[in-house]
């Protein structure tokens, strides 16, 4: 059997890769995809705990995380399209209209 902390370590590694992507990439769409990757690593943690504790609450939470992720992807991509229409770029270094 695989111990629980193998899943937790894998999930932490995936989350860290997502953080590196968010911090290093300049393309807004890729940054967005890295956020999806981080959401998925958290989902893996929730399902692992759900299986090892024998509690269905983790899987219900994953279901709701997926719903929110779908809503977030739709709204976020619409924002990226609106930004591209105004500034003709998806480079997050050039998108600074909210900067003080």
């Amino acid at each position, binding site marked *: 059997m695989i111990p629980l902390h193998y899943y937790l370590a894998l999930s932490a590694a995936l989350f860290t890769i997502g953080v590196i992507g968010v911090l290093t990439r300049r393309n807004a769409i890729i940054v967005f995809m890295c956020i999806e990757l981080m959401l998925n690593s958290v989902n893996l943690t929730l399902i692992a705990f*759900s299986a090892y504790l024998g509690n269905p609450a983790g899987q219900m939470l994953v279901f709701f995380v*997926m719903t929110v992720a779908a809503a977030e992807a739709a709204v976020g991509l619409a924002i990226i399209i609106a930004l591209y229409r105004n500034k003709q770029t998806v480079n997050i270094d050039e998108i600074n209209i909210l900067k003080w």
Partner: protein
Amino acid sequence: MTPESVFFYLLSALALVSAVLMITRRSPIVSILYLIVNFFSLAGLYLTLHAQFIAVIQIIVYAGAIMVLFLFVVMLLRLGDESQLAEPLSYRKLIAVGLAVALFLEIGYILGFRGSDRYIAQAANAVTIGTVESIGTEMFTRYLLPFEVTSIILLAAIVGAVVLAKRHIE
């Protein structure tokens, strides 16, 4: 090595490799395809945890719907050549990787600190809680209110996406 652990190691290696390739490839399309590979390997890992329903939903909703949305947006925006988004190896990037590794070590420290040898094997009822029947029973009894509230979130997201992506708002 049991077949189960071989399956686990293969899928986690695939997940890690596809995630690294996703954040390093230049072309957004290639990145999206690697993220889909990552989602498929995660669905396989969910199967090793006996979460059949979530594994299927992962493929249908994530690899299917959400990633197609990403592909559509990348193809809608004429990004031209990627050279204007060129990302040379700068000190900022090195600091970012250093911070992320520090985060990983922090998570590892917390996991090690809590003495994670308590959960060696999956719970006895792990096989039954991931079935569609069990998920459905839970969702429509105990979690009925959150389930209904998600419909409001989805409605708000649909309206928001249409309003934001519209060209002119009178």
